[in-house]
């Protein structure tokens, strides 16, 4: 009796697992698609211009992508919970200045970076509190904090600026040095990316973020601490924007009150191109980071092959629309596959 029962129970289970791996594959394919576009683009440029992927060229590509990739990682975590943080550009700007101001006063580089991260996390906490306690759409709340933080920045910084000669040499060196073609900044970003990716994939609280994004109501009923999780996402996003601010300072050696102005839109583009759906609950930080690398690389590819930079924004826009189209098609396909599986399961039961 038990022997007959077992295959019946395991058959649908294995089918369901089959469906899950298929869906899994499709989402992985989504990130692979970005990677493929990136590889083709860089490869073609290399054929056209042999200097493009030289040691210096690779270093530049990585450095260009680092800051955006960091902020996009944080943004992806927030977007996965079906929210958004538009204040990242302002947070980056004010953290960069805070770090620079501290270094200018003779502070240690490590503490300056920590200060930037802490300041970013603080603003993240504010955003998270407003969004989760106020129950107001994140788009509006963070648009508000975008302006508020930029306003504070403008009043505090005024027309002052941090220039390269005000920074310790080691700190500026950290901004462009590295191991062979891999800059320290990129290594740091990679460590952060892997850590956040691991957290999202393997921790209960990480999985909760996906659950929240898929269906906030269901997640609440299932006992997910909604407020706490949203807070976590925003604090993480803010802290990463703060870290990116410190790295911005190291890399560009120049910060004023306009630093990071308008950056939020680039970040959101990177996240969407990387396959993190704005409807929440899907995508990964790896995808977002790849999206960031893709977007910044376009900015390097065009000048390297001699195309006017005026095209950059148009191309970014097309990529964005393509990404959304691909997501939509994938979603429809996955839905169709699931329906088919369900129908098969039903008919199997009838047999």
């Amino acid at each position, binding site marked *: 009796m038990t022997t007959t029962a077992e295959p019946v129970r395991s058959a649908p289970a294995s089918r369901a697992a089959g469906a899950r791996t298929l869906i899994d594959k499709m989402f992985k394919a989504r990130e692979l698609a970005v990677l493929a576009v990136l590889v083709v683009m860089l490869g073609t440029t290399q054929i056209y*211009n042999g*200097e*493009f992927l*030289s*040691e*210096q*060229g690779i*270093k*530049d590509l990585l450095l*260009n992508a680092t800051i955006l990739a960091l902020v996009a990682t944080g943004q992806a975590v927030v977007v996965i919970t079906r929210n958004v943080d538009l204040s990242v550009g302002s947070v980056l700007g004010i953290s960069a200045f805070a770090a620079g101001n501290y270094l200018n006063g003779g502070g240690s580089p490590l503490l300056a970076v920590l200060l930037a991260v802490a300041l970013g996390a603080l603003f993240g906490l504010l955003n998270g509190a407003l969004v989760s306690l106020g129950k107001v759409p994140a788009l509006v709340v963070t648009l508000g904090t975008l302006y508020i933080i*930029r306003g504070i920045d*403008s009043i505090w*910084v*005024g*027309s*002052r*600026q941090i*220039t*390269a*000669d005000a920074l310790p040499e080691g700190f*500026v*060196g950290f*901004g*462009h*040095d590295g191991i062979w073609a891999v800059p320290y900044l990129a290594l740091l970003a990679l460590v952060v990316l892997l850590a956040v990716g691991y957290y999202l994939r393997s921790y209960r609280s990480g999985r909760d973020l996906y659950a929240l994004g898929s269906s906030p109501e269901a997640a609440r009923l299932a006992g997910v601490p909604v407020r706490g999780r949203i807070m976590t996402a925003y604090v993480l996003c803010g802290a990463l924007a703060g870290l990116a601010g410190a790295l911005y300072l190291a*890399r*560009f*050696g*120049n910060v*004023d*009150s*306009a*630093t990071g*102005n*308008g950056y939020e839109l680039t970040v959101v583009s990177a996240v969407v191109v990387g396959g993190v759906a704005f409807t929440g609950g899907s995508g990964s930080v790896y995808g977002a980071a790849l999206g960031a690398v893709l977007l*910044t690389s376009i*900015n*390097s590819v*065009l*000048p*390297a*092959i*001699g195309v*006017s*930079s*005026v095209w950059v924004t148009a191309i970014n826009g097309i990529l964005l629309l393509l990404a959304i189209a691909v997501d939509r098609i994938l979603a429809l396909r996955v839905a169709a596959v699931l329906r088919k599986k369900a129908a098969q399961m039903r008919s199997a039961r009838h047999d």
Partner: protein
Amino acid sequence: MSLATVRTRRLTLAVATATVLALGATACGGTTKNDTDKKSGSAVTGKADANAETKKGLKIAFLPKQVNNPYFTIADTAGKKAVEELGSTYQEVGTSSGTDTSGQVSYVNTLTQQQVNAIAVSAQDPGALCTALKQAMKNGVSVVTYDSDTKTDCRQVFVSQASAEDLGRTQVQQMAKQIGGKGEIAILSAAQTATNQNTWIDFMKEELKKPEYKDIKLVKVAYGDDDAQKSFQQTQGLLQEYPDLKGIISPTTVGIKAAAQYLSGSKYKGKVKLTGLGTPNDMRAYVKNGTVDAFELWDPNKLGELAARTAVALQSGQITGAEGQTFKAGGMGTYTIGKDGVVSLGKPTVFDAKNIDQYKF
């Protein structure tokens, strides 16, 4: 009945106001008001009296390309000092983005409504501000452009930071000296529409036609949009596209410091020469670490001061913006208005390792 009374009253009021205004205008001795009215729409007509008394109590507004931009803050602070010294009041308004043209237009409109006496504006776009500025001039507001000009008929005087010709030509001379008069060079500019950049670049191209520069080849003009990241990537692109590049001229303060920061952290440091327009504070680190030999700039303090003094001179009727008129600009000496209503500050200063520490801006 009551409606008619109100109407009659309004009419009486209007007539009275008009009479007072007309009397007022006559009392002024037919200097500013009439002149400004006459030349609305065209900037170079009207009578001026170089000896007219400098008016006090004027409201002078500065509208830089971008507020909180360190360069404009230096210029505007000097403008403020000059305005207050002349017994008038100063205010600064403007957009926090350097490319928010519609924002700049609405600031011009607001200032016109507030009935300021003069606007000193650095235009984000040569054409976009025209309607608003012409409207302002029609209302008796004197319009001075500084740093970046509009079309000539949309303002009375343009206070140029140094003649465009001098700036364009001296940057090429500087570059030629640094690369030994031979090799490929490129230009890293700001936005493709930036008026002043484009004028300088045209003069650079003119200068390069001279026989002594026959071995120098301008291979490309790239645009970094006055954004650090974009300027970085444009510099990288130039170096990749032209591996034999010997030098880059960047006639924008944002562009040159981004290019310098990139070069100083790359294998091109010291090998690819960089010159252009930068501020000593921005560039100090790169001059000292050997990335940059020399670069140039005018003194933004003087630019702001001259813009302020020109605005007051216009409103006082000492000048109208016609070619050949002269006016005294306080301690700065006497200036003459050139062709198209342009007043030029003079030759730029060259900064190098020897003198850079004398300048703090």
